[in-house]
């Protein structure tokens, strides 16, 4: 009986005591529970988002793929965004012509048949003026007069000759495209087209991401993808790469057309060798032990044209290549050879327990929207299959 009264007493008192504490406690508990619930919700939501990471050496086409996805599966570029590219495109023009001009000067001093690279005096004047522009912090927008100058210099035979040696300079791939479209670029009401934007070259700084939901024919419920693009140039990759541990797939872009080009950061290093080392490094990272790898052998269109003129063997990695017949067959044969090399690299760099991760190779031309769309459809199917475990 006394025990019961005791209990009853303390029951009553404990209630009243906790009354004082409970107010602040319950609000805190409520807040904490709320935060926990939100964390749980967001974690659950995150799990349904399939994360893709774009990796690759500089100028391998990662950002172009990024732009393509934006065009295909998001609302694309609106007018303001398109216009924001004008300064970039004009900058590309200045950069291109300067590289060519400097290149011509250098070649005329270094090469044996230097007369090919000597620019006519009028054009030299233009060249100097344009160089000075390129040296400024902010580029002026192109106008009719400047375009006329640039065109004149572009058409100089020495510059054309230099252009044909473009691979030894750090000439961006968009050079020819913009030079051919100069008049259009300088118009007062110029609004960049999708193609212009895809060609525009800007070094990616930091990480950018987009979230999208590809709607296929079956219109199956919201598969959400998130694509991350990081800069490609050499920097402290090893410090941040592990932040991407949870990604579902790595899309590694390798520009197969650059087997005869040198790095921007280090002109003594062949770009293909850099890509080879980077791929090897990425494959060996612990954070990607279970990640699927999609290898995009990119810039196939440039590769196609180049292979007819420059043999694969100029790149050390491909020195055991034996050409067959010239023409279309050669292109296919060369492509298969390069593909096999990458395959070999993959299997050599993957420890036996990792060989079971999904590894697929795709031939891409990032500028071709239809191709990118088809390629992405295949990737979507492949990822869905591996999720469903078939």
């Amino acid at each position, binding site marked *: 009986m006394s025990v019961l009264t005791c209990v009853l007493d303390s029951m009553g008192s404990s209630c009243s005591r906790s009354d004082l504490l409970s107010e602040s406690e319950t609000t805190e508990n409520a807040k904490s529970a709320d935060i926990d619930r939100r964390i749980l919700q967001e974690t659950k939501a995150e799990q349904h988002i399939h994360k893709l990471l774009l990796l690759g050496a500089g100028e391998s086409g990662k950002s172009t793929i990024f732009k393509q996805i934006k065009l295909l599966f998001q609302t694309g570029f609106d007018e303001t965004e398109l216009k924001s590219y004008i300064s970039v495109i004009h900058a590309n023009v200045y950069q291109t012509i300067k590289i060519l001009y400097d290149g011509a000067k250098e070649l005329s001093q270094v090469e044996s048949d230097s007369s090919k690279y000597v620019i006519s005096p009028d054009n030299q004047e233009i060249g100097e003026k344009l160089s000075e522009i390129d040296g400024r912090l902010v580029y002026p927008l192109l106008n009719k007069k400047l375009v006329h100058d640039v065109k004149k210099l572009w058409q100089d035979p020495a510059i054309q000759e230099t252009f044909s040696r473009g691979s030894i300079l750090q000439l961006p791939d968009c050079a020819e495209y913009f030079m051919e479209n100069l008049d259009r670029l300088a118009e007062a009401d110029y609004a960049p087209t999708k193609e212009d934007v895809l060609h525009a070259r800007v070094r990616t700084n930091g990480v950018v991401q987009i979230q999208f939901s590809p709607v296929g024919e079956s219109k199956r419920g919201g598969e959400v993808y998130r694509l991350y693009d990081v800069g490609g140039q050499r920097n402290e990759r090893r410090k941040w790469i592990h932040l991407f541990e949870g990604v579902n797939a790595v899309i590694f872009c390798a520009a197969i057309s650059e087997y005869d080009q040198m790095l921007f950061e280090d002109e003594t290093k062949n770009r293909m060798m850099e890509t080879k080392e980077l791929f090897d490094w990425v494959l060996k990272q612990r954070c990607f032990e279970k990640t699927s790898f999609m290898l995009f052998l990119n810039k196939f269109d440039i590769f196609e044209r180049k292979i007819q003129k420059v043999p694969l063997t100029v790149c050390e990695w491909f020195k055991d290549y034996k050409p067959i017949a010239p023409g279309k067959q050669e292109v296919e044969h060369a492509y298969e050879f390069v593909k096999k090399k990458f*395959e070999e690299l993959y299997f050599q760099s993957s420890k036996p327990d990792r060989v079971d991760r999904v590894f*697929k190779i795709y031939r891409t031309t990032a500028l071709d929207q239809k191709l990118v769309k088809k390629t992405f*459809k295949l990737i979507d199917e492949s990822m869905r299959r591996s999720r469903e475990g*078939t």
Partner: protein
Amino acid sequence: MPQYQELPCGGQELDIDTALKDGILGGAPELGDATAGDGGKQPVELRKMMDELDAAGDGGGDEAVPAVFICPISLEPMVDPVTLCTGQTYESANISRWLALGHRTCPTTMQELWDVTPIPNTTLRQLIAAWFSRRYTRFKKRSADFHGRAAELVHGLRGTAVPKRQPLKGQARVAALRELRSLATNHQSVTKAIAEAGGVALLTSLLGPFTSHAVGSEAVAILVSGVSLDADAKAALMQPAKVSLLVDMLNEGAVDTKINCVRLIRILMDEKGFRPETVASLSLLVGVMRLVRDKNHPDGVAAGLELLSSICAVHRPARCLIVSIGAVPQLVELLLELPTECVEPALDILDALAIVPEGRIALKDCPRTIPNAVRLLMRVSEACTQRALSMLWVVCRMAPEESAPAALDAGLGAKLLLVIQSGCGPELKQQASELLKLCTLNCTSTVFISKCKLTKTIQ
């Protein structure tokens, strides 16, 4: 064409007979007198027909079920239609359920029912029965006509159908391919019809770098189902892009897709213009090994081993590749778990791999080579014994000091004696005795005897 009669009041009356004949009301003359005599039997048969048509997906049905035949409650065709006093017709079971729940309103018109008696609508029932039986006979006829159906499918896929339609794409294409595949696998004779309709060229053209897995797996299945592939077709299939697709499907697909890809590659390998470098692909070899290791599917194991065996025979450099992907220890570990008919091909492969130095080293380094090989002696067949023996020979010769004791520990001695005394061929016995000599070089007879665990009599 149904005939209309002009009525004196200015309307038109549908002539029921011609309407039935031409199918507007769906009645078939054959079942014209479907009387209510066997009322009990009819609904069951009708139900069966409906279910069968439903299950088959009714690929042959171009017409939808007429709206008046559908019960408003369940949205299913009615088997036993009854009409209420409001004039609305429902499936008997459904409306009974509605009324049993206590409702006294008509479900569609929401009117209150002054009379809940449902009147069996015999007219409608007969019409439904007639419509469905007509459709059923048509369906059955089409199903029997496999050749026609196959040709129809091929033309549909090619876009050469009459009347001209666009070639099928997307889900429709996958569905058509799937149907074609089931026809081809179930009825061998259909493959001829497929080939005649231009199916082979179509299927080959469907395979390419951008082919989805769904389309590719069905196409390959049809190609290996017995359709005759002429030289041109095979040449087309040997293009690197198509082979890449096969390799991808081999790596990613379900087991039967994998087996089909293996089979197709095998067919191509037999062809004259086949370039052996095509199979010197690491992805291909890794994929085949994965198939071989899959214990749950012995068919796949057998197919995979056969392909590997052919690759080894046809292309020497491929052997080094096979060794480099770690196939040797994997195969050795599998040896004792393989179904009996697979042991010989597996040993064949190991035998072929042992010819290259890397293969020999891999055999030596694998700890299970000796025990497994010893176990296999005199277990399966003479051919297997011979291969196992030569494997042991290779390993023991490379490193006699370590291998010989290990081999004897595993019971090699007794087995070799068995071989020598058995009815095997003379070269085998010769090999066995040489191996015995090699292994017992540093062995005293007492140790040997104890290792052999021989009984006194044989001693």
